[in-house]
């Protein structure tokens, strides 16, 4: 009897689960199901690799290794890579953007003519933007200058701050008062007519090499951010303000998760985001006016799905996804993907990473405060071999804080050849440098015997609180050439560094000790930032060397990273480097050069690189070559460091699309 009861319970549970879980889980109304859609057994893109001549759906399935969380909040918040990808595909029409080479340009699809600049007597600067009259949202609603102004009014509002969106409102005249609630309007933002707005920047933020970026607004559909009020942008001559109600944090936060009927102005519009199956579907926005080159997308539907790194290439091979973007791991991802390309049916595009993996030094204490020691570390590591091994052949080496895709680098080949030291592997030169720098003693103060750790006599100021210092009976302070290295766990870079540097015979022969401590990456960052707010122990300088990676954006700016102002030490200047010349060059390069003066900017950039290369606060280890692999019926797809999927897909098409 009990067995029967158990069986009945089992069957009932199964039936219930089918009823409860079997339905469609899309959070929004799904798009029309194509009548001829193949059933699941007819694997969706099986045909993609094997029958290229047949017609296929005008649809691209994009595999992303980052989870879709469904947060479409704009840049006032932080969202993950896939959410950002979706947002950028559905929201465009920025006044200023970047072209294929990373150069800042005025978006001619949005702006009528150029941005007009007026220098005011008080040192402030006004940018006047006239937008085109035929712009529309995906719904067909017209876009006017009020929509651009609304973006600033919501972005700088106290409600957005309360909603957790942090945007500093001190660069536009009157915006700080507006954000703090002291004023109901932004005096430095004016709605001049239906299609023109003007934005005035405070003198403290000028000059700035990328100053046009201050004028960068995009249209914002107010009803989505204030569904319970009828807000209107007004300007009575004193500045812009919102009339007809108030913004509140709850509505602003809710706007991030509106999927159904989301009003947007990009090449694509959102059909749905299914957080149950981790998929997003987008279709062409019929009202999109094109990008800055007038380019509109031709691929009707984009499906963005989650792909697990371990099986992503298999998913591509079986046609479950059509494109895998930015593969980084040479052995696990790139080689299997290129095998697919060799077998036929797939193509790839490769591009340089705009950043690099590096050894980073703390330049204010211990042995790594001395440039000679940092240079010696560079000379003791065969960086070409390191990059080759780590990237499995898909990487290169840089000699400064730049990416190979930067126009500044491309224009500086001759300068680099003449001035930059590549620190090629040379243990003998490393020893010479160390000896010249005073690392010539044993622990007892006698002349270095040729084996063991080198010591250097240092001043009390140089000695600081470094725990390994030795004080002799005669009062002399000796510092050992013993570098404390913080490395993160499960990190293949660290493992290779142990073999090729820390445990290398050449390092021991040079009288240098590199002592590794493995910790979580969070812990590493705490030590690197010296973040005493997490724990007092992090506030004490402990590690002189870290290994991690860094990247650059199109607006190259190292002013705060090299700043001598201690306010920026830790969070921004986490090398703790205090070199007047380096700091000046980094600052003046962007805050001392007028916009458009590329020659001066380039000259200062080169000087900055030269000085950085000499001081070597980091040792760049490798800069990857990334690969994006896709089915070969995707035509015209070209990607680069500055030209992401969301840009490249506009120019791509599907061969024999239905």
């Amino acid at each position: 009897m009990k067995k029967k009861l158990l069986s009945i319970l089992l069957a009932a549970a199964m039936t219930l689960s089918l009823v409860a879980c079997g339905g469609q889980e899309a959070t929004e109304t799904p798009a029309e199901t194509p009548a001829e859609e193949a059933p699941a057994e007819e694997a969706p893109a099986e045909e993609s690799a094997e029958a290229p001549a047949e017609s296929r759906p005008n649809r691209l399935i994009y595999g992303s290794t980052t989870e879709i969380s469904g947060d479409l909040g704009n840049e006032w918040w932080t969202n993950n890579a896939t959410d950002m990808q979706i947002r950028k595909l559905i929201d465009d029409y920025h006044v200023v953007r970047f072209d294929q080479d990373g150069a800042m340009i005025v978006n001619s699809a949005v702006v009528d003519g150029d941005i007009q600049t007026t220098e005011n007597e008080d040192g402030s600067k006004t940018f006047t933007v006239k937008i085109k009259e035929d712009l529309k949202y995906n719904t067909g609603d017209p876009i006017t200058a009020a929509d651009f102004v609304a973006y600033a009014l919501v972005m700088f509002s106290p409600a957005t701050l309360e909603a957790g969106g942090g945007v500093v409102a001190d660069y536009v005249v009157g915006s700080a008062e507006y954000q703090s609630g002291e004023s109901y309007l932004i005096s430095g933002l004016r709605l001049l007519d239906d299609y023109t707005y003007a934005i005035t920047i405070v003198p403290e933020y000028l000059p700035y090499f990328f100053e046009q970026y201050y004028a960068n607004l995009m249209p914002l559909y107010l009803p989505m951010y204030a569904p319970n009020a009828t807000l209107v942008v007004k300007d009575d001559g004193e500045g812009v303000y919102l009339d007809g109600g108030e913004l509140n944090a709850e509505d602003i936060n809710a706007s991030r998760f509106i999927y159904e009927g989301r009003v947007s102005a990009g090449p694509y519009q959102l059909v749905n985001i299914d957080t149950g199956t981790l998929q997003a579907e987008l279709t062409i926005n019929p009202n999109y006016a094109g990008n800055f080159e007038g380019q509109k997308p031709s691929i009707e539907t984009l499906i963005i799905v989650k792909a697990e790194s371990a099986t992503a290439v298999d998913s591509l091979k079986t046609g479950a996804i059509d494109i895998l973007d930015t593969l980084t791991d040479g052995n696990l991802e790139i080689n299997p993907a290129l095998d697919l390309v060799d077998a036929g049916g797939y193509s790839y595009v490769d591009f340089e990473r705009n950043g690099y993996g590096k050894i980073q030094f703390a330049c204010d204490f211990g042995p790594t405060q001395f440039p000679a020691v940092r240079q010696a570390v560079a000379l003791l590591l065969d960086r070409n071999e390191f990059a080759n091994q780590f990237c499995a052949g898909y990487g290169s080496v840089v000699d400064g804080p730049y990416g190979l895709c930067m126009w500044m680098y491309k224009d500086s080949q001759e300068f680099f050849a003449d001035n930059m030291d590549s620190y090629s592997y040379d243990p003998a030169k490393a020893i010479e440098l160390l000896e010249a720098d005073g690392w010539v003693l044993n622990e007892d103060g006698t002349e270095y015997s040729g084996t063991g750790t080198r010591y250097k006599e240092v001043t009390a100021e140089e000695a600081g609180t470094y725990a390994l210092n030795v004080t002799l009976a005669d009062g002399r302070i000796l510092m050992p050439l013993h570098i404390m290295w913080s490395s993160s766990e499960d990190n293949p870079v660290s493992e290779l560094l142990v073999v090729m540097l820390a445990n290398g015979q050449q390092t021991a022969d040079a009288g240098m000790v590199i002592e590794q401590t493995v910790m979580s990456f969070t812990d590493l960052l705490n030590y690197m930032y010296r973040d005493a707010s997490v724990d007092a122990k992090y506030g004490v300088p402990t590690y002189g060397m870290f290994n991690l990676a860094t990247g650059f954006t199109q607006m190259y700016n190292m002013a705060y990273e090299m700043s001598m102002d201690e306010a920026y030490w830790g969070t921004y200047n986490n090398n703790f480097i205090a070199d007047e010349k380096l700091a000046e060059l980094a600052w003046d390069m962007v805050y001392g050069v007028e916009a458009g003066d590329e020659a001066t900017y380039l000259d200062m950039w080169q000087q900055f690189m030269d000085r950085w290369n000499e001081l070597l606060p980091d040792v760049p280890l490798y800069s990857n070559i990334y690969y994006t692999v896709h089915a070969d019926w995707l035509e015209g797809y070209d990607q680069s460091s500055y030209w992401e999927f969301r840009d490249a897909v506009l120019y791509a098409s599907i061969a024999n699309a239905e």
Partner: protein
Amino acid sequence: MKKYIVKRIFYMIFVFLIVSVLMYLLYNLIPSDPARAELEGIKTQLRPEEYEQRYRNLRDRMGLDDPILLRYARWMGFAPEKESGELNGMLQGYFGYSNFFKKDVSDVLPVRMKNTVLINIFVTFLALAITIPLGIVCAVRKNGKFDNSIQFLTIIGYSIPIYIISLVFIWLFAVTLRWFPVSGMETPGANYEGMRAFLDRVYYLTLPVLILTFASLGGMTRYVRTAMIDALGMDYIRTARAKGLREKVVIYSHAWRNALLPVITVIIGWFITIFSGSVIVETTFTLNGMGQVYYLALRNSDYELALATQMFYCAVSLIGQLIMDLSYGLVDPRVRVDK
């Protein structure tokens, strides 16, 4: 019986509170700064003032600068919330805020729970349907060729990590034979509805269900086999046979009914695990379930989400233990559970 249940419920509440304190402290011992982690990716795009403002906002919103006991009290619902001044914690049904999903945890978990339960119902049903008869046959043919072969296979199945089983199955059934998809939960962009959607879902879930079933065969088969061998060695079996009963009746009516006593608690335990997802299989197949979300929460330092998931498991296990203990008394009259 009622008194026993009430007493156990009080114990459960006590244990739950102790576990909640321990878990909360453990998660907060991790040297992390979720506010900084959230901003790390966009740091280079922000001016220092902007970064600092966002960082301070986040720390304030997350309450990271408050004493840990106060944070615990708020999280549990013993102390009022910072912003609203009202009690709003676990005890009031608020399970926290997911920093990764930017939503309340209670909005994040249900859909994942549904996916996990769907998968595990199939797995449990299939595994029981296979292991119980298999264990019985092995016990009846103890030390025979069939039994030895099954023992060998179950040892192998039991020993191989599920990650390896997954990759082998994917390679064989998805990449080589192309019978099933490599990963995912439904055909991308198909937007099926009704029965077609259900069949599509079944097609996508078949391979992970097979893997989970395969991985769970070893333990249960051996457990049933052992219970049956014990039962078949009892005097009442000899008596039954001496009475001239058919062997089928002896095995299924007499031996199996008695062997069921220890097995049933394991079976009930299995049903309780339908709420807990497999981290490895769900992650490998990008199945949006409880296991995957727990892994994701840990990887992204989303500790409120991880904690809520963990406390949910804690509650499920406590309730499960009570049900298991009660079931002993229900299926075996010799066991009294009223003390």
